[in-house]
């Protein structure tokens, strides 16, 4: 009898410990967002969004940074989406049983765990030096595209795997070829899951700093990029640069820029979660 009582007390205590631990992470997140809001929200105004960088914190703005982030987002998407989706289709529909497929699969698991800064070293050598892109948007976008490729591939595979084989068989049964079946049946059915993965991966690319520092992206760029071969900066680079300055004014600028970056990240993640939920509900075959 006594041991049952003891066991029940442990059980109840663990229940509270579990709630407390779960809340701990969320509370830290809340503290940390509140702090940044208090520091930075007042700094966000039209001037901040439309000004070039400056040595004086009160005159500096994030125009080059957010336009750079928009460029990077677009270019990375253009490079990474077709490659990632194509590779995902190959692995799931063609290469499942052959040796090449297995090698690619192990390889992708490995790539997903390679630190982002190593991709920076790769990009520096291949895109900046060998292909002579310099520290341009192109070099940055290609580097980030390689970084997020594994995420898109894995998401594509999972989405395709969730498509029931009955759908494929129905299509084959009507005389469709493999590619016709994939293009007309499998991909539309898997599109929700693929899109979710793409958005999450792009949100990751938008927040990356380290690989861009390594390829030589600059924090101080006094003009807005016009072509993909221009030099650039992005929001995280600008935040990093301001954070490492001693003047308090720059810390406030960093907080304000963080708010913009977080809004962007949360919107992208929110869309992805929304799509995932909708897709999961619909896919009750």
């Amino acid at each position: 009898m006594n041991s049952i009582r003891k066991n029940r007390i442990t059980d109840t205590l663990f229940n509270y410990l579990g709630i407390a631990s779960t809340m701990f992470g969320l509370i830290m997140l809340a503290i940390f967002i509140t702090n940044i809001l208090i520091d930075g929200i007042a700094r966000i105004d039209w001037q901040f969004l439309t000004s070039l960088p400056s040595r004086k914190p009160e005159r500096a703005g994030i125009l080059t940074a957010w336009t750079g982030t928009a460029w990077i987002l677009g270019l990375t998407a253009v490079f990474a989406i077709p490659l990632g989706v194509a590779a995902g289709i190959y692995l799931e529909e063609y290469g499942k049983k052959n040796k090449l497929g297995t090698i690619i699969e192990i390889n992708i698991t490995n790539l997903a765990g390679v630190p982002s800064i190593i991709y920076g070293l790769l990009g520096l050598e291949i895109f900046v030096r060998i292909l002579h892109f310099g520290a341009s948007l192109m070099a940055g976008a290609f580097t980030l595209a390689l970084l997020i490729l594994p995420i898109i591939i894995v998401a594509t595979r999972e989405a395709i795997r969730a498509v029931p084989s009955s759908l494929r068989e129905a299509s084959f049964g009507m005389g469709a070829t493999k590619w016709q079946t994939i293009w007309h049946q499998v991909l539309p059915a898997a599109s929700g899951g693929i899109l979710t993965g793409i958005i999450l991966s792009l949100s990751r690319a938008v927040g990356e700093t380290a690989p861009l520092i390594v390829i030589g992206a600059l924090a101080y760029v006094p003009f807005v990029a016009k072509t993909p071969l221009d030099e650039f900066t992005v929001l995280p680079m600008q935040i990093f640069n301001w954070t490492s300055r001693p003047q308090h004014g720059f810390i406030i600028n960093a907080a304000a820029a963080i708010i913009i970056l977080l809004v962007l990240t949360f919107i992208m993640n929110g869309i992805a979660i929304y799509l995932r939920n909708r897709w999961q509900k619909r896919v009750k075959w």
Partner: protein
Amino acid sequence: MPTIQTIDINAWYGTKQALKNISLEIEEHSITAFIGPSGCGKSTFIRIFNRMNDYIEGFKMEGQVLIDRQDINAKEVRVEELRQRVGIVFQKPNPFPKSIFENVAYGLRIQGINDKKVLSEVVEKSLMRAALWDEVKDDLNHPALSLSGGQQQRLCIARTLAVEPKIILMDEPASALDPISTSKIEDLATELKENYTIIIVTHNMQQAARISDKTAFFYMGEMIEYDKTTDLFTNPRHERTENYITGRFG
């Protein structure tokens, strides 16, 4: 005097009613069989006797379950203690991924008993009563999952016996087994009756007829008929029961 008595049991999963006004009494040292088509509520009902439905989300119950005249849903009843008195064996054998010995010793270990000598004695006794001892006595440290399906199910029975319950619930214990293993489980149930009160859910009417003293027929959440097994099978009072036992539906 009945050991088990239920009074006006109603139960729901969410808004769907699973059991309707079920009242019955079960005698000590007997085997009672619950039969009926799939989804008739018999499995929901058997799980009420040791509150296995507690952790199922959306499950709600009204009515009283008395075991030895005590309301098992009363506030002061500790569900863990109840389950030590009312053991359960499931449809599919579900040994833990541990050794044979540790499977049987599990119930004692969670009560804080770790004395190796006590554990060994209980393990041996329980395996003997479950008619498994001779087959595994040299392999007690082997993983339980290396046993055959029938052996696994007898191991699960031994595991239940080890905590010395008074009542054993068996939820279709032989439905996943081959005919030989099934008959071993049936023989075992008949032997255990001397010391335990047994309730068994089964799909298999021959099985109910062979081993049980009383049988209850369930249909759509209601208990249609409850009688001595011989009477229920030879002389059913309700048409639905007759249709079911003669195989006209099910």
